[in-house]
């Protein structure tokens, strides 16, 4: 079946611009997660959504970052007023239920000039 998909696959933007990254989870998965992978770094958690519960936003690095999940499916990660240090690969994952195996998408590679 179809896995997690993300778009765009690559995004180049200028410092100060806003960007939106999209994630389509695996159909039927109730939990959705966003992670960031910086060059030479591991993966760091950003935010996750579980069903209708309030999202866990504890990993968002600043108030320039926000995310929403509409209709319990597609999610959008928004970065406002992008900075060069926001350059990274943004990865989305989903799981059938909370605390179960997370399956990752291919990521969006963001470059802020």
């Amino acid at each position, binding site marked *: 079946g179809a896995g997690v998909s993300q778009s765009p696959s690559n995004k180049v933007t200028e410092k100060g611009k806003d960007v939106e990254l999209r994630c389509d989870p695996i159909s039927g998965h109730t939990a959705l997660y966003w992670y960031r992978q910086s060059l030479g770094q*591991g*993966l760091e958690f950003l935010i996750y959504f579980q069903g209708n519960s309030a999202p866990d936003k504890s990993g968002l690095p600043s108030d320039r970052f926000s995310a929403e999940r509409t209709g319990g499916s597609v999610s959008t990660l928004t970065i406002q007023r992008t900075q060069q240090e926001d350059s990274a690969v943004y*990865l989305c994952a989903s799981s059938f239920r909370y605390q179960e195996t997370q399956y*990752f998408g291919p990521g969006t590679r963001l470059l802020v000039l």
Partner: protein
Amino acid sequence: GESVGLHLPTLSVQEGDNSIINCAYSNSASDYFIWYKQESGKGPQFIIDIRSNMDKRQGQRVTVLLNKTVKHLSLQIAATQPGDSAVYFCAEIKGGGGKLIFGQGTELSVKP
């Protein structure tokens, strides 16, 4: 602090040999552990997982061992193939939580 770390940043093995990738974790409250494989330009791919009530779990050519006494996790790959070349990450989930905490990764290189 809370961290999942890997002992070796790189591992080079000969094709056909067995590979062992190690991971140390510091949070005794973690109850779910996962190994992911990441190839260049791709997202992490699930390999195998293990819950804290188990010591060993086997998959196809892979085995994960969990030693809770010394907070150590390992991934064994049997008959390593060139297609196994990638970065391997261990990750943990704390009891009651949902987010993955990743280690820094080990790059496995398989020589033909």
